[in-house]
């Protein structure tokens, strides 16, 4: 349980990078359903720096979590065998591919067709990263982590948070008119609802499962009791953020989306803290 504090940087990493990368889901969706003018694209591309910065922040923070980050390049030797190496490799690769996307887009070198495909690939790649992130924790001896719930939680926040993030970017780029909204809102809300069900549902199921686990020094019931209030808050926050997303149908869409984005960041972070609180080894 003291890991919850020491793992704070990782809780941040596993919030920021999935949500940052998930933004490309929303952008891909927008590109697919709606034609944008070159000026609009330019504004979108400028703001597309934001998810990159958020991801970079997550990476830098995770590096500082390491007690000896100078050896970090050895991490790539574990690819294939260590799920942590896989996650880092996929994450770094994603960032590089996204950075290239951004450089090309911002430099005006992306045609509409290539842009759609590239953004879509990034969106899907973001989900792959979220899965690898979750799988990094599926260690056989950590009973409460060796479940499908971890990856589902991260995929969920990547989708829900990503849609919210991307939607905010579209609004801040001043391209989110009623036209775009009409083409965009149904699909966005459906995708986001999947994210909500995955993130909130998996979190709830995870807590419930952990309560049944018996440990040698502390019981699952004991750690669940500590985690439950935070988990409940997280779920409420996730639901609230989705509710805010529904506000894209209203006139208050900008304010509500920003609120929703803030909520999903906090709620996701809380959910990740819960994940670390639930760590329970099969042994000592």
């Amino acid at each position, binding site marked *: 349980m003291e890991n919850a504090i020491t793992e704070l940087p990782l809780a941040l990493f596993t919030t920021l990078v999935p949500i940052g990368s998930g933004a490309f889901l929303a952008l891909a969706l927008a590109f697919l359903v709606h034609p944008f003018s070159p000026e609009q694209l330019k504004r979108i591309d400028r703001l597309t720096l934001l998810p990159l910065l958020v991801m970079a922040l997550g990476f830098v923070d995770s590096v500082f979590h390491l007690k000896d980050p100078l050896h*970090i*390049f*050895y991490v790539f030797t574990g690819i294939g065998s260590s799920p942590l190496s896989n996650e880092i490799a996929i994450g770094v690769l994603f960032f590089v591919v996204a950075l290239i996307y951004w450089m090309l887009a911002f430099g005006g070198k992306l045609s509409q067709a290539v842009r759609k495909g590239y953004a879509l690939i990034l969106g899907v790649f973001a989900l792959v990263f979220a899965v690898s992130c979750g799988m990094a924790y599926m260690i056989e001896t950590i009973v409460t982590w060796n479940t499908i719930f971890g990856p589902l939680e991260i995929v969920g926040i990547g989708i829900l948070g990503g849609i919210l993030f991307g939607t905010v970017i579209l609004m801040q780029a001043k391209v989110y008119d009623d036209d775009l909204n009409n083409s965009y809102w149904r699909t966005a809300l459906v995708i986001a609802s999947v994210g909500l069900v995955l993130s909130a549902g998996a979190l709830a199921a995870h807590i419930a499962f952990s309560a049944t686990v018996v440990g040698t020094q502390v019981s699952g019931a004991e750690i669940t009791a500590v985690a439950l209030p935070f988990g409940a808050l997280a779920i409420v926050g996730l639901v609230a953020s989705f509710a805010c997303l529904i506000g894209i149908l209203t006139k208050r869409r900008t304010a509500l989306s920003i609120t929703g984005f803030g909520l999903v960041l906090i709620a996701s972070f809380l959910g990740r803290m819960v994940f670390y609180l639930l760590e329970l080894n099969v042994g000592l």
Partner: protein
Amino acid sequence: MQTTKLGISRRTFIKTGGALAALAAVGGSVPLGSLFRHDIPQIYAETPETFVWNHCAVNCPGRCALKLYVKDDEIVRVDTYSMDTDDMDEIQPRACLRGRSYRGWVNHPDRINYPMKRAAGSKRGEGKYERITWDEAIEIIATNYRQVIEHYGPEAVYMNYCTGNYGVTARPWFRLLNSIGGGFLSFYGNYSLAQLMWITPYIFGSKVTAGSTLDAADDAELVLVFGSSPVETRQGGAVSHHDYVRLREKTKGKVYVIDPRFNDSLLGHSDEWIPINPGTDAALVSAIAYELIMNEWVDEEFLHTYCVGYDEETLPNSAKGQNLSYKDYILGSGYDKQAKTPAWAAPITGIATSRIKSLAQEIGTTKPVFVIQGWGPQRRSNGEMTGWSICMIPILTGNIGLPGTSNGLREGSYAIALTGLPDGTNNVKASISVFSMVDAIDRGSQMTEEADGVVGVKQLPYDIKFVVNWAGNCITNQNSDINWVHDVMSDESKCQFVLGSDILMTDSLKYSDVILPDLFRLEQPSLIGTGGDGAYMLAGSSPTSVKFERKSAYDAATLIARALGKEQEFTEGKTQEEWLKSCYEQSRVKDPLLPTYDEAMEMGVYTRKNPKGPTIIMESFRKDPITNPLATPSGKIEIYSEKLATHISNHRFADDDPVAPIPIYAPEWYGVETTTKEYPLQCSGFHYRGRLHSCWGSLDIMQELNPQEAWINPTDAQERSIKQGDTIRVKNQFGEIELPAKVTPRVIVGTVVMPQGAWHDANMNGDRVDKGGNINTLTTHRPSPFAKGNPQHTNICQAMKA
């Protein structure tokens, strides 16, 4: 250009880094070439090839071997003597966790480096000192000594009981006090076994001081261990820790450990534990005796041939016809007229009637039975009677002097005996109990032979005025009733001068007027003999140069003798090392098998198995009691002691002092039958793996994994809302301590136990709450009736959350 360990330049790396360039700035200079190799070994702590032998020298007969590895004049590693063998009979004095932690102690930040005197304006007990030179220190000491001798006499001079340093030449202070004129007020007894030591000559005579060696129990069919934890009290690899583990494997017999605490000697062997209320062993024994008598399981032939006092037949004339035999006591026809039935003993001891009966049957119908006791049961207000009672089990059943038996005392040892530095002659006849120093400072001139355990004179002529306290923490920390001791010692109108000397600043040392910086025994040339089931001797040399202005006790004593014009009388012209050699030559005359001095120093450890096998105590007496009588007045085992009856009639005792000429059960002043509403729990101490008394007690690595905790039963804890790990207060009429609770079924209901030796830590000018958790903040300084010894386990208390 920066290069890495493997010689690849940073510039080269960045060129080949390619797309990873952005991350390279974060990663720093790591050579790509080494990414896939595993051949870089761990870096290990350097261990120099050579070492110096020496030995542990504290209050434990282990004296375990130490291999001191030295580099740049510092001890960098401590190892021990060991052999890689499965043979449990090989003698290996392996150092315990304390011996392995010497480095942290020898280099402790509170190590004393210079002579000091009490800071100007400070009060004794405040612990404030200023540095002085050796010349100044000796001058102050000599001046005060002369004054005390002039105004009073040598009976006012006292060397306190101290157990921190042992060896052939380790203890020069008695010799010094005898050399510089007149002698000193001596003490009898010790804090380890005062009560048992006092009573044993009445039972078995003065030539019997212990029982058989533990390996004698190999042949036993039943082994009874009263109030002892052999794996904890002597933790080394060639004393009872090892010998008891070996016994348990080799003996044919069932083992029972009778103790209020499931001590560490029971770990893994819970079926051996018989929980008992502290201080009630004599009640248990009395009830067992009742069953043995009623079922005719006593060995009457043995009792009539080898003992006096069992029944009317063998009572001395002065006691005949008055129902004064032991049998009368047990059956209720004499003394308190109470039949000592199991039903009577059950509520006192906490042991079920049926269990007492079945245990008595096991004892009565099994042969041989091996009975030993630790020194816990006797360290109580009824300790003399309790220690004696336990011996009644082998006595009643004739389980003495035969294979597979002991005599009920603590296990004996087969040891190498070395001649020590001679003390010389003490011209002072007066002697007090080891436990009475602070009383004798407080009111010595009122202490009498009749009431206060003074021996040699009818009354002490004066209070103690000059104290030497060297290598000991027994003014306060290890002594009873710390709060009272502080008040007496800090009263400067009482004791005039306290000379302190030690290696570390301790709680007791704070009452010194002058402090001399001492050396560890392992920092000096040394020899010591000891043993468990097997005998061994340790030799040691100095590992490093002497640091700061520290001096050995011998050299410090020499300077004092010189200042008083008695250097030649004290040294006889010899250095400590010369004494070591000459004493050892005397030892070799008595024991020609011993190696030469140089051989001993070279080998470090000399071992010797007992060629006769296990030592069976009182074997020759059992073979022929006429030719080999005991050193008692009757020549036999005395169950009724006429000599003790005379002693009782010639001395004064309090109403609740348990005195009788036979071994009886008597309630303690603060025991299971005398708890109060305010103090409803009993409180006892135990010896702890993490310290030797208070030695090692201030080392952070020892405290970390060996915490000072109060063990409390879940029933008692629940009543007080105390949970495992809670900080609690334990208090009684003498003081209050604070420490964490260990809530455990490993202690009997109604009793709190805690390790002894924790470092006293209280604001003596404030609330005096002892945050170190030292049990002696709670113990009484009232001495036991006969030995005037320390009853440090006889306490009642209350416990509560802090």
